[in-house]
């Protein structure tokens, strides 16, 4: 509701002004909170690895690093690709955005595929002691986040076709891209903990 009198408008702020633009704030708060679950799992991994009397299950000598390394390179570079897509969107180059965004999704999907191949070739399972347990817990929980990220990107891609979608800003794409960087950073820590520190 608008008032004709400017003096009143100064003293009384209309309600809807305070309604918009919280999504990014809320999403960042959510990511901070979500990172604590990973921190908890990392802490469990470190403690169990340092204290467990029997770490590697029988018949397992360690993890091969080749496949995960390729995966790491793909995932880390996809973060830069996502950033590029964001730049395109910022310049309102919609098709540029869509193409590069789709490329990010493809790289993410390759990561999931690589993870699947690695899992299916491993000689131990979820129940192979604390080593198997923490390995599948960490990679699986991270993998779920990658899949969620891809789904969110698909949603953003779809929404880019809706007319007038960016009139209220690009908070959706910025949030998803932030989520992707988050998933990426978590993976780097995870990679160091699980594959490098053997």
């Amino acid at each position: 509701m608008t008032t004709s009198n400017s003096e009143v408008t100064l003293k009384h702020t209309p309600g809807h002004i305070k309604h918009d633009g919280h999504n990014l704030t809320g999403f960042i708060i959510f990511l901070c909170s979500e990172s604590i679950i990973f921190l908890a799992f990392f802490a469990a991994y470190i403690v169990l690895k340092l204290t467990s009397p029997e770490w590697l299950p029988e018949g397992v000598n360690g993890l091969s690093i080749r496949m995960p390394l390729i995966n790491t390179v793909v995932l880390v570079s996809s973060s830069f690709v996502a950033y590029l897509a964001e730049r395109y969107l910022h310049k309102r180059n919609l098709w540029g955005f869509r193409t590069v965004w789709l490329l990010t999704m493809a790289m993410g999907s390759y990561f999931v595929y690589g993870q699947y191949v690695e899992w299916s070739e491993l000689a131990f399972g979820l129940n192979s002691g604390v080593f198997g347990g923490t390995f599948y817990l960490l990679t699986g929980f991270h993998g779920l986040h990658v899949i969620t990220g891809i789904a969110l990107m698909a949603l953003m891609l779809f929404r880019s076709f809706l007319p007038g979608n960016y009139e209220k800003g690009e908070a959706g794409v910025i949030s998803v891209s932030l989520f992707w960087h988050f998933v990426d950073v978590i993976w780097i820590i995870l990679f160091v903990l699980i594959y490098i520190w053997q």
Partner: protein
Amino acid sequence: MSISNYDARILKAPHPVPGAPDNWKRFFSFNTDAKVIGIQYIVTSLFFLLVGGLLAMVIRGELITPPADLVDPTVYNGLYTMHGTVMLFLFLFPILNGFNNLLIPTMIGAPDMAFPKLNAAAFWLVPVFAIVLMASFFVPGGPASSGWWSYPPMSLQNPLGRFFNGEMLWITAVALSGISSIFGAINFVTTIIRMRAPGMGFFRMPIFIWTAWAAQTIQLLGLPALTGGAIMLLFDLSFGTTFFRPEGGGDPVLFQHFFWFYSHPAVYVLILPIFGIFSELFPVYARKPLFGYKVVALASFGITVLSLIVWVHHMFYSGTPQWMRNVFMLTTMLIAVPTGIKVFAWIATLWRGKIRLTTPMLFCLGGLFNFIFAGITGVMLATVPIDVHVGNTYFVVAHFHYVIFNTIGFGVFAGIYHWFPKFTGRMYYEGLGKIHFVLTFIGATLNFLPLHWAGLLGMPRRVASYDPEFAIWNVIASLGAFILGVASIPFILNMISSWARGPKAPPNPWKAIGLEWLLPSPPPAENFEDDIPTVINGPYGYGLGKPLVDDEEFYIRRANEA
């Protein structure tokens, strides 16, 4: 400026309001108005206070005589586990979220929460996990029985080998409750950061807002650690991993760390808003500004930070190395400092004030008195040699009931009475309120004070039978528990009859200073709608004669005319 302009708004103000008996149906719908959600939370949690209270009556009935005669010891294990779980996850957390919903938007002058749909989703998860938890009474093998902390290896026993067992349902319920809490926390923090009225800088926020913010920060940073631990516990229980099973290389004490890393701070999630309620109410009923406002505000975050680094005081007797015990003894004692600052500020606020002994004020004074007592036993427990002696005895039970019921419970009642007129639009009956207070104070004291002696003499907690030398303390305690049960009758009577047909409440029955008191009682759906006020002074200006907001008369007039 034309008066007619205002008149148009006045006509718009009386929306169908939450609290009006004719629109009760909205309380059973996916409503996104924070005031409706607040009342949904509060009524739901009061119902579960009754459920948890009934479980407590059975427990106290069992303990009135030394042998295990009323219920089987196995049933007894399930009873205290469910009692603790219901009281924490279905009474205290939800009722405080109810207060957050009612008070955060109205106190900061926001039309609603930042994410109204998320807010409603957070509430509707409560009945969902309540059903999951209650269902565990009916599965073969009965409900979870390893205490509210669910330590392995006890919690990993599954003698019947069924997938849907009490413990599994318990973990699921707690995880759902965690999701609800995180939804809530994101909402509250975003709302406080982004939706304050113009002119309300951080140091003009009411203390309740400070404490809610500090408490929700703990939720955001602590709760995910428990979620992580609970996921691992569920895997151990249901999917054959061995994170916490020593026979498979795991470490049961690791779970204790996860549990207490959150659950110690969680007690501050509960008490911080109560500190907020005390800080709101003492100035109103003593007619004096809050003593040391800035220090009290900052002490809230001091508590947040310290609360995250004291958790091992619950594990002094879990094979914890001596250096670790010393470190955590020190940090635990440090947390008494910001807490003590607040106590000092309240007493200084009351000092030479014009004290009005209304029901909310009585509950506040009773709560403060009990809290000082609980703080003393807390510092005793933080001392390693004492704790090793009384750990796992009724002394601990006495300590935390003095905080959790005799302080937090009292603060909750104080808050309910104080804001009842604002959000229902009706006055409660003062006489019934006072009866409720007297019965509650006597019942709570008789119930929890004697347990200190039982504990010091060595009575272990969580057992259905005990040595006859402890009988006298238990008889008194059970008597107190039954008085507490009786105390709920005047409360329920008061709430129902006042809400239905109590006298109409004016906008500001207590002559309090605060944005929520500039609104009509009950406030319209969007609170200040299109006239969000500009705050020009700090809170608690009692006796200072300074207006809280620009153009204050307009708001007072509008609220009175609504």
